[in-house]
Structure formats: structure tokens, C-alpha cells
């Protein structure tokens, strides 16, 4: 009797996953699928959740999103772990193309970066027109500043701004300059908790729930422009890349339907991304 019950228990434990394993490839594998290496901002802002179901509906192609920082997305794609890349760091994208990892880069959309600080504006930079000058003031006043520190597009932009300001913040790392090494959302959470300033893309900022006491203090500097680009992972180097489905996605994203949907995506009454495929800027 006891032994029989024990056998039943064992059987249950073994059959359970076996039964479940039958179901786990169903929806996502039904049609063709591609892997999109993208950034945390496109996922955290909800843009991809808005766009991708509509693309799948139209084409039957499922897009699996791996959302990491731009730097990691490019490295993953360079190893062949992805079909399409959607990132925001122009220089790094060009290096990626030049190294032969990707082909056919196209502009997709843009928005901008903003500097956010606690409402009492500890660095006294509210309304400044130059982001670099604002950063210099932050350094001079030793106001806590949280850096992404993760080689993401936002981090690359921040480092470029420090360079423009003529300041190297790294010797101060661990004091007022704090390198988080995390995604945009996590970095905003840290800035909220520390009462610190940080640089964020506007899409993540608008969509982020936990803003605490932070508010935008610097915006509108042309240096804060944030361009997103899409690329195909080089099929010559990685023959497994699903070229046809991947191209269908790139064409759709930069075509009239994708562009219109990007413009339509609004959160809290604001447009987060501005489509600019095929336009000079």
C-alpha cells in the first residue's frame, strides 16, 4: 500500500514534465520566427509589444526579442545569435557594419535623451541649453550621478557628452559618479533611490512608473539626439540567418505601415518615437 503510493508519487513527478513538454513549442514555433537583438529602451517603453503583434498578424512571422544594452546586442549579433539588430549607437553600428557583422543598415526612428535630477535641482542646471555644460556643473558640484556603465547606447552617449565637457568622471567613480552597470529602468530606480541625476532616453523616462522625485532638467540640446537603426546580421558570415523573414521585418519596420505604427504609439499622451526611415537628417 505504502509502496504503491510512493510509486504513484514518482510516476506523477515524471509524467508531469513529460506532459508539459508537449506544449512548449506550440505558439511561438507555429510559423517562422526570427530573433531580434534589441535594446532595453524599445522593450521597456512597450514599443515592441505594440508593434510586433501587428507584424506577426500581417506576415505570420514571430519576432523573438532579446532586449539587452546596445553594446551587448551588437556583440551577441556578431556571434551570430540573432537575425536582426535594432539599436541606437550610430558609431558602434558603423563599426559593426565595417567589421562585416551586419549589412543593410537603415534609420528607423529617433527621439532624444534628457537629463533628469531630483526636483530641488541640486546641481543648479535646470533649463540649461547645453548638456555638456550641465554635466560639467554636475561634476563641479559633485552632485550624485548614476551612469549606465554597461556599454549601452545611452552609456556611449553619456561618455561622448563627458568628453565634450572636457571632463573624465571615472576618477570620481564610487564617489559622486556611480556606475550601475544595468539597464535604463534599473538605473532610473537607482537614481530615484539615491536622489541622483542621470541621463535617460525619453521613451524609457515617459514609460517608467517609478520616477519618484526625479524630473527633467535639461533637454533640447541637439547633442542629445537619439537615432535608432536596424540592420540585418550578415548572412554570408552566419548562413543560418533567416534572410527572407528578417528582410520582411526590416522592410515592414521601415515601410509605411511600420512607420505609421511607430508614430501612433503614445504613452501618457506623448509620442515616444518619431519615425524617420529613408529621411536625411
Amino acid at each position, binding site marked *: 500500500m*505504502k*509502496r504503491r*503510493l*510512493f510509486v*504513484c*508519487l514518482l510516476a*506523477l*513527478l*515524471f509524467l*508531469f*514534465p513529460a506532459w*508539459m*513538454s508537449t*506544449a*512548449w513549442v506550440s*505558439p*511561438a514555433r507555429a510559423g517562422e520566427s526570427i*530573433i531580434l537583438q534589441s535594446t*532595453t529602451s524599445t*522593450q*521597456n517603453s512597450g514599443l515592441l*509589444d505594440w508593434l510586433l503583434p501587428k507584424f506577426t498578424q500581417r506576415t505570420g512571422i514571430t519576432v*523573438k*526579442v*532579446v*532586449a539587452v544594452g546596445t553594446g551587448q546586442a551588437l556583440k*551577441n549579433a556578431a*556571434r*551570430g*545569435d540573432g537575425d536582426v539588430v535594432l539599436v541606437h549607437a550610430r558609431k558602434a553600428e558603423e563599426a559593426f557594419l565595417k567589421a562585416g557583422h551586419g549589412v543593410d543598415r537603415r534609420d528607423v526612428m529617433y527621439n532624444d535623451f534628457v537629463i533628469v535630477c531630483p526636483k530641488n535641482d541640486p546641481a543648479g542646471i535646470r533649463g540649461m541649453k547645453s548638456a555638456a555644460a550641465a554635466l560639467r556643473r554636475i561634476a563641479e558640484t559633485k552632485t550624485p550621478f548614476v551612469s549606465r556603465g554597461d556599454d549601452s547606447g545611452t552609456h556611449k552617449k553619456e561618455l561622448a557628452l563627458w568628453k565634450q565637457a572636457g571632463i573624465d568622471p571615472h576618477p570620481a567613480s564610487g564617489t559622486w559618479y556611480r556606475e550601475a552597470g*544595468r*539597464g*535604463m*529602468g*534599473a538605473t*532610473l*530606480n537607482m537614481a*530615484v533611490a539615491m536622489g541622483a541625476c542621470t541621463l535617460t532616453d525619453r521613451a524609457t523616462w515617459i*514609460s*517608467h*512608473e*517609478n*520616477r*519618484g522625485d526625479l524630473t527633467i532638467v535639461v533637454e533640447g540640446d541637439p547633442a542629445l539626439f537619439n537615432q535608432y537603426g536596424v540592420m540585418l546580421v550578415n548572412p554570408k558570415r*552566419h548562413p*543560418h540567418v533567416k534572410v527572407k523573414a528578417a528582410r520582411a521585418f526590416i522592410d515592414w519596420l521601415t515601410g509605411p505601415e511600420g512607420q505609421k505604427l511607430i508614430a501612433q504609439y503614445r504613452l501618457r499622451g506623448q509620442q515616444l518615437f518619431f519615425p524617420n526611415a529613408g529621411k536625411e537628417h
Partner: protein
Amino acid sequence: MDGGFTQAFGEALSMLARLDSGVLEIVALSLKVSLTSVLLAGFIGLPLAAMLALHRFAGRQGIIVLFSALMGLPPVLLGLIVYLLLSRSGPLGVLGLLYTPTAMIIAQTLLVLPIITALGQRVIASLWEEYAELMRSLQVRGWRLIGAMLFEARFALMTVMLAAFGRAIAEVGAVMIVGGNINHFTRVMTTAIALETSRGNLALAVALGCVLLALALLVNILVHVLTKLSGEKGALAT
């Protein structure tokens, strides 16, 4: 953030109440991946544990120490190793397993294998002191001895399996790297919590955490009750 905690628990309760289909999908995948991993690791680890406990051979002590040390293996490091193996540019890249539930199972199996082996070895070794003479007099040897001792130690080994399950279901580092946290495909409880935290949806993140906790509790209760029903001594308490 005001009233974050009350809001979070309220949300957790309402999520459980309406059994949100998105959450159910994530819960199901978490269970699938972690249970499969623990069972696979059990198939490999338990006989290995018995072998290490019952047979004397060269290098045995070294292997035991190694498995004990590997219990502290950081999931994120293991995830990285499995990522490099399964990446398209890695040695097993042709299989195309990266960013699939299979990759997550591979990572978690390797993660809990040392726990099952090291703890299992200790359980069986201590039981062996009691059974050594009996087994010798019955002339039980080799694979039959391993099978017999595994059966005799079954209740304590169930606790070992539960410890392994706890480790698997709670880890985020490995599944995040090899699974990619892909919606409707490789998103599990822990990676969903990480994602909602990074979205600033702290209430939802805590709510998901509560669901995860409830899940772990449920599995433990299930195993506990079934073991109690089938066995006499409360061996699970050890």
C-alpha cells in the same frame, strides 16, 4: 511608490484570483523548465551520489570535494558558459539551441547537478553505516546495491531534490542569459520579475514574486503530503 507594499500585495492577490493568462503561461514555463532540470539532474546525480558513497576508487575524495564546491557555482557564470557553448559561434552552435527552453533546461540541470550529487552522497553515506552489514550478508552488490540504497534513502533524497528545485526555480542569472527572456517563449517567473523591476513596475514585480513564492510552497506541500502518505517516518524533516 506611495503605499507600494499594500498595492503590490493587492495586485498579487488579484492576479492569482483571475489567473491572468500571461502569468499562467510564465508560471507553466517556470515549472516545466525547473522540474525537468531537477529530474534530469536526479537521473544523473542520484546514481552518481550512490556510487560516490558506496564504492571506493581512486580520485573519489577529489570528486566529492569538487561537487561540494560546485554547489556554490554562480548561476550567471554557468549561464555564460552555456551561452558560449550554445552560441552560433560556439562549439554546439549548429544545434541552434540558444534562446530556447531547452537551453534553459541544460543550464539549470548543470546548476543543480552538484547539489543533488553532493547532498545525495552525504545522505547515502550516513545511511550506509546502518545498512552495510545487512547488504553484505544479503550479498547485494554493484548496480543492485546502488538501486537498493537509493530506495532506502528515498525520503531524505526527496528533500535533496526539493533543495535542488528551490535553487532552480529561484535562479535568474542563467536563464536570463541562455533563454533571453523572450516573451511567450522563454520568459519565466524570475526573468519576468527582473523585467518588471527594470520597467519600474515595482508593484507588479513584487506581485510576480509572491506568485513564485506561492508556487514553491505548493510544490513543497505536494511532495510533503505525498511522502507522508506513502511513508511512515517523517524523513522529510531531516
